[in-house]
């Protein structure tokens, strides 16, 4: 089952239609799954067994090695673009092992060595203190105002969400892409560069957070 964390449903249609999924393909327009499952970036996944019990908490869920990792960085790129390449290449890649773990669970179920106990699941789920909880409320409030009042009404609340929970990339990437994507563009801006609305941007926040190697919640398999 897939869930798109996108405040604008229409932004997902192109991808869902191209995939023609045979599984339930859902949309989360308020990022409520961040609250309920602990997602902080995409792609991430949780494993839920037949009884509705989570047997692996939210963790990075790449199942294919990105071709960007094995590309030589082209010469002559603008400095920021070159640095983005380097940070992407620095991200840990356990995609092969994660995919194998999923297949193992599919076959062995509760007998899979990748299944965790309830206590392990809870302990390995993302930290949630006052700041993270307030950030979630700020994001939801901002999205409510964006939808019911005006896009700019979300901004102060989303700024607070970014400040309170800088490790939540869905809050930041969602906000950035809405202000850096040119009007009428067919695809969202994935570079999410410096802008006049939010203090952060993708590259500078990745670097501030410890670089590409710290960007994902690496599955501990």
């Amino acid at each position, binding site marked *: *089952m897939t869930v798109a964390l996108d405040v604008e449903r229409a932004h997902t249609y192109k991808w869902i239609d191209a995939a023609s999924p045979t599984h339930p393909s859902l949309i*989360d327009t308020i990022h409520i799954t961040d609250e309920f499952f602990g997602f902080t970036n995409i*792609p991430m996944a949780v494993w*839920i067994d037949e009884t509705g019990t989570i047997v692996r908490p939210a963790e990075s869920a790449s199942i294919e090695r990105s071709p960007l990792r094995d590309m030589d960085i082209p010469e002559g790129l603008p400095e920021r673009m070159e640095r983005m390449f380097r940070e992407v290449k620095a991200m840990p890649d356990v995609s092969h092992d994660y995919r194998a773990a999923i297949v193992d669970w599919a076959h062995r179920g509760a007998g899979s060595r990748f299944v965790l106990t309830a206590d392990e699941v809870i302990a390995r789920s993302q930290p949630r203190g006052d700041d993270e909880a307030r950030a979630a*409320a700020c994001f939801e409030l901002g999205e*409510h105002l964006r939808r019911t009042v005006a896009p700019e009404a979300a901004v102060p609340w989303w700024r607070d969400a970014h400040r309170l929970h800088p490790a939540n990339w869905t809050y930041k990437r969602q906000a950035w892409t809405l202000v850096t994507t040119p009007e009428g563009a067919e*695809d969202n801006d994935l570079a999410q560069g410096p802008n006049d609305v939010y203090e952060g941007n993708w590259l500078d926040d990745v670097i501030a957070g410890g670089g590409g190697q710290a960007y994902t919640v690496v599955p501990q398999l």
Partner: protein
Amino acid sequence: MILTSLDGVSPDQFAEHSGWAPTPEGLCRGEICVPAPGSLRADGTVDIDAAAQRLGMPVLHDADHGVWAVGPATLGGRALPTAVAADPELLTRDGNPFKLSALHGRKVLLVAWASY
């Protein structure tokens, strides 16, 4: 959880949006029940301030627009207070509601993605 008033919130509404069900035993999610005297008012509605205090939920107010947002519980300090999966209502491609519980009895790999 977005509210336009802190009054008149039903237990079902609170449970749907927070994952915590107000019951006579307290506020319950999965196998966990937190004693919460005062969280249910005599008229059957939820006292949001009392419930939020018990669960460590922030309650934010935007006075300009007359709206409140109640954040998730901080009980236990982790995103998951229990391994029992929450059951939020999500939307399909065509805008129809869908709940995770519809897949009960099957393994679910719940994968989050986005267009950005």
